């Protein structure tokens, strides 16, 4: 086996191991901050797999969007609300775990069956390599224009919805009930921290 082939194989094995171990850790760990960081690691490893498949643009986009934006936002949300408290014990935890493990294993079996039974056309079409950027652009503006635009409209709707939910204090009426809204913040009353505090 050539040096290049060996390097690729070793890289693939390491990246695959990171993906599997990171995902398991992300699901199994009880510390939600660790889970979020492991998610970032999994995204990076997936980007590495794309790189091995000669899809450098997709790999860079994966890092930019998933690691740089989505994972940072997840961490941001966790750290803004995190109180470092242990999760409360849930009733029938063992039963729940057994059931969800069963469902997951079933899904895994299904996927393995698909992988094994599908007649894969190997080796696939040659990788376009550096040309990929231009090809993705062409597809986005021709045959994939409608799905692309629909996805962006969907994201815009989600964003407006999130702003409406988060900034209810600036709307005159409640969006759900139509009643005149309370203009104060929902979370807490907005008394200044240092002034007007009763001296005890």
């Amino acid at each position, binding site marked *: 086996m*050539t*040096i*290049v082939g060996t390097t690729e194989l070793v890289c693939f094995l390491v990246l695959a191991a990171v993906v599997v171990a990171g995902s398991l850790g992300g699901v199994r760990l009880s510390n939600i*901050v660790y889970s979020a*960081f492991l998610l*970032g690691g999994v995204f*990076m490893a997936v980007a590495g797999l794309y790189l091995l498949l000669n899809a*450098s*643009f997709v790999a*860079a*986009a994966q*890092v*930019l969007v998933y*690691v*740089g*934006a989505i*994972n*940072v*936002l997840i*961490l*941001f949300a966790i*750290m*803004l609300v995190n109180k470092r408290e242990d999760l409360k014990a849930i009733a029938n935890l063992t039963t729940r775990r057994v059931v969800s493990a069963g469902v997951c294993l079933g899904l895994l079996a299904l996927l393995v069956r698909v992988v094994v039974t599908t007649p894969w056309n190997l080796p696939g079409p040659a990788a376009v*390599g*550096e040309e*990929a*950027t231009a090809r993705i652009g062409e597809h986005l503006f021709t045959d994939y224009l409608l799905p692309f635009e629909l996805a962006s409209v969907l994201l815009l709707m989600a964003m407006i919805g999130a702003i409406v939910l988060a900034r209810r204090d600036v709307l005159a009426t409640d969006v759900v009930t139509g009643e005149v809204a309370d203009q104060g913040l929902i979370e807490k009353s907005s008394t200044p921290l240092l002034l007007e505090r009763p001296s005890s």
Partner: protein
Amino acid sequence: MVSPGLDLEGSFSQALQAFGLSAEAARLLWLPLPMLLVLVAAVVGVLVSVWLERKISAAVQQRIGPEYAGALGILQPLADGLKLLVKEDIIPARADSLLFTLGPVLVVVPVIVSWLIIPFGQSLLISNVGVGVFLWISFSSIQPIGLLMSGYASNNKYSLLGGLRAAAQSISYEIPLALAVLAVVMMSNSLSTVDIVDQQTGVGILSWNIWRQPVGFLIFWICALAECERLPFDLPEAEEELVAGYQTEYAGMKFALFYLAGYINLVLSALLVSVLYLGGWGFPIPVEWLAGWLGQSVDAPIVQVITGSVGIVMTVLKAYLLVFVAILLRWTTPRVRIDQLLDLGWKFLLPLSLVNLLVTAALKLAFPVAFGG
């Protein structure tokens, strides 16, 4: 590594194959060399900018600055580095030691890897990857994760606030930055840094992108300063408000990693500004013209060596002029407030960069000769 006239990689590989090594093994031995060279260049660049920072800040405040360590205090950065290296490495008792250690590493590694795409000459770069500047943008988006990690792991409210601020700032300024880069990419029809510089080589200084993208240049420079957390935008570590932000609990080498990452990032941003807007390795008068006037062939080895050296000197010179501007800005401007910072990013720079992109597209359609058809 160098164009046909001087093929260093070819001669290195031939020399090794003469000793009976296979071509693949020779390549494997060659690969780390440019990387090591660039790593050394990055560290030396940091030492120089630390010295410049100390001397220029002193001049701004009418002090002398370091003067005992070497001539003009030129060894002062080395002394600083040595001090940080031998300092005790403290991990706070209630901190999360794993994340606390991993945080600075995640901050410094993407910045160093981004040096991959900086060209110092036609083929003087580690790898001319097709995704070029896009690689840098995506790598610089990993940094906030390291900052959030160290802010969280320090178990200190100032650190956490600093980390959150750094992430918010980085996300806000990445969008106008990417849009400004996109306008340049649109003109050169390529993401590769080499192609972007090649497109600016036509008539020397007049064909540099700064004349075609003045607004984009300003947007990019402001955003780059914000991404480096340099002073008008150094809110994540604002001393008066947050002690030192996410760096508060760090000491010794871990603190030095943040310090290093900050300066490497500054030099990297300056290099990228010179690549994207100031003609990269190009001399103000095209070297081909000069060679023609002197009656020399461009492919002659001696001309190749001179062209290569001039390219490196020009890239570094342009970058350090920008570093000088950044240092002057740091010591002469006050810090903005966090709401002003986010307003500037989202309500001013983002619409401006969108307009800049649209105008560039329109100009490209209207005048394909001047704006890269």
